[in-house]
């Protein structure tokens, strides 16, 4: 039993520590800098930040509304 516990602890330290080390190295070697670049990477010139890309259920309302431009309907209010 005690061998089991010892092995278990050793493994936890080794592997868990290895993971922590890998993470620490990743941070120190600059992988984590400029995190916003990562977050923004899914957008592009054709699907920029600020525009919805899925408006399938956008329902037309009154005739006055339907004359609003497409871009205006797509853009979010606020941020």
């Amino acid at each position, binding site marked *: 039993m005690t061998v*089991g516990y010892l*092995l278990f602890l050793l493994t936890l330290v080794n592997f868990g520590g*290895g993971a922590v080390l890998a993470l620490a190295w990743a941070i120190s070697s600059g992988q984590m800098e400029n995190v916003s670049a990562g977050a923004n990477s899914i957008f592009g010139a054709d699907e920029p930040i600020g525009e919805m890309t899925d408006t399938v259920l956008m329902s037309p309302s009154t005739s006055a509304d339907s004359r609003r431009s497409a871009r205006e309907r797509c853009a979010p209010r606020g941020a």
Partner: protein
Amino acid sequence: MFSMQRGLAIFVGITFTFATGWVGLIVIPHLQLGELAAQSEEGTTEVYPRPLQGLAAQGRAVYISEGCLYCHSQQVRAEGYGTDIARGWGDRRTVPRDYLFENPILLGSMRTGPDLANIGARQTDETWHLLHLYNPVITSPGSIMPPFDYLFETRRIVGERAYDALPLKDDWAPAAGFEIVPSDRAKALVAYLKAQNRTFPLKEAGR
């Protein structure tokens, strides 16, 4: 290269974190429990547990093929942790040694029906088992267990009734001149159920 390093970091990290659980849940228990052996009672030739033999071993295959596991468990929880023992499902909890020769083990994860770890100790009447399998409602009104009538054959009575024809009464009885007889699979399954007996005293179970 910037992203290759990141890819490598991800890979290394994933390997290490995953390996922790793998070692903990699989390797170590295997080392600990894999060395278990059967136990013999002092002064006797009795050995426990024994691998299933003959008809009971065949019955195990029927248990698996019909998916009995999806409603029945085969493990008794400790006294004080649940009412398994109070219900008479066993007189002690089950321990790793009880399952030594089982492959695959059939611990189960649902108790839509009662636990069967000790059904062989609890219910020894073969006829009860056969009737219950034929249609559970006969012996247990209100049961939601499916009928296993396809494990039985309807035969015309030739001369005397078969010795193992089911004693079905009233609405359940077959047409006049016919009898319902268990198939080999039904008999094997009942043999398996009657072999489910984990009451042998074991020190590690507290008895």
